[in-house]
């Protein structure tokens, strides 16, 4: 995981697989309404695509795909989106996390649909950031004597 792998086949196949995994991960997040899936599963798949790059390309060469210092900020962004939706609902006149009161102009059922989508996106970002951050911490902690 520190040095890159030396085989050309693994290199090329990984470069082909990473965008496919990411598109599938976004599909799983956004189709959480209509099929099994949702925020947690899509976030784990997004983290998996970045961790594949870390394992195959080595730590230094894969920083271009996702820098190590962005792990915790993505976690903060995810929690912020989740609680921000709840606060927005409360500032617009309802209770905390009451999606009926969001000022978006749909009817009540579609407002709850939109609220669920925003919340799942927040959860996806949070899970992705934290899983990548834990992996990077373990690699760096094992390096230093």
């Amino acid at each position: 995981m520190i040095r890159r792998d030396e085989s050309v086949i693994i290199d090329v196949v990984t470069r082909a697989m990473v965008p496919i995994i990411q598109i599938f991960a976004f599909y799983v997040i956004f189709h959480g309404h209509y099929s099994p899936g949702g925020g947690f599963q899509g976030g784990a798949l997004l983290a998996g695509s970045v961790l594949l790059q870390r394992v195959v390309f080595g730590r230094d060469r894969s920083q271009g795909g996702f820098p190590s210092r962005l792990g915790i900020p993505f976690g903060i962004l995810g929690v912020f989106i989740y609680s921000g939706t709840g606060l927005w609902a409360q500032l617009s006149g309802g209770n905390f996390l009451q999606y009926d009161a969001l000022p978006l102009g749909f009817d009540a059922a579609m407002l709850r649909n939109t609220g669920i989508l925003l919340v799942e996106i927040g959860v996806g970002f949070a899970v992705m950031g934290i899983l990548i951050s834990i992996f990077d911490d373990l690699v760096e902690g094992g390096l230093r004597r």
Partner: protein
Amino acid sequence: MIQRLFDVVVGHWPYAFTVVLLVIGLYGMLLKGNLIKKLIGMNIFQGAIILAYVVFAYKKDGTVPVIMFDEHHHAIEQASRYMNPIPHGLMLTAIVVGVATTGVGLALLILIHRTYGTLEEDELMERLRRDD
């Protein structure tokens, strides 16, 4: 007593499998000397508990809890045709919390190895006793 055990193993065999996994996980946590083996025992134990909840959610001839539609686009909302959704939802959270717990446990193991140089339980207790 033996008759009851036999009835449980034959009639509720998924529950019996859950108990077997739980005992294997506890055996790993209690009786193995290496610290990483204890951590993996904890993971197996967690898997057994998650499986137990999902087993209790099953209904006969029930399908995945995603609402189906018939030919006239009306929703089929009869509750006995879908599996119980509450344990599935609770266990989604439990799986992610399990991953986070394993991550923190591995970080603590790295620090222990860095300070004491070993990950075996008896050598670790020996060095702790020597340092006191």
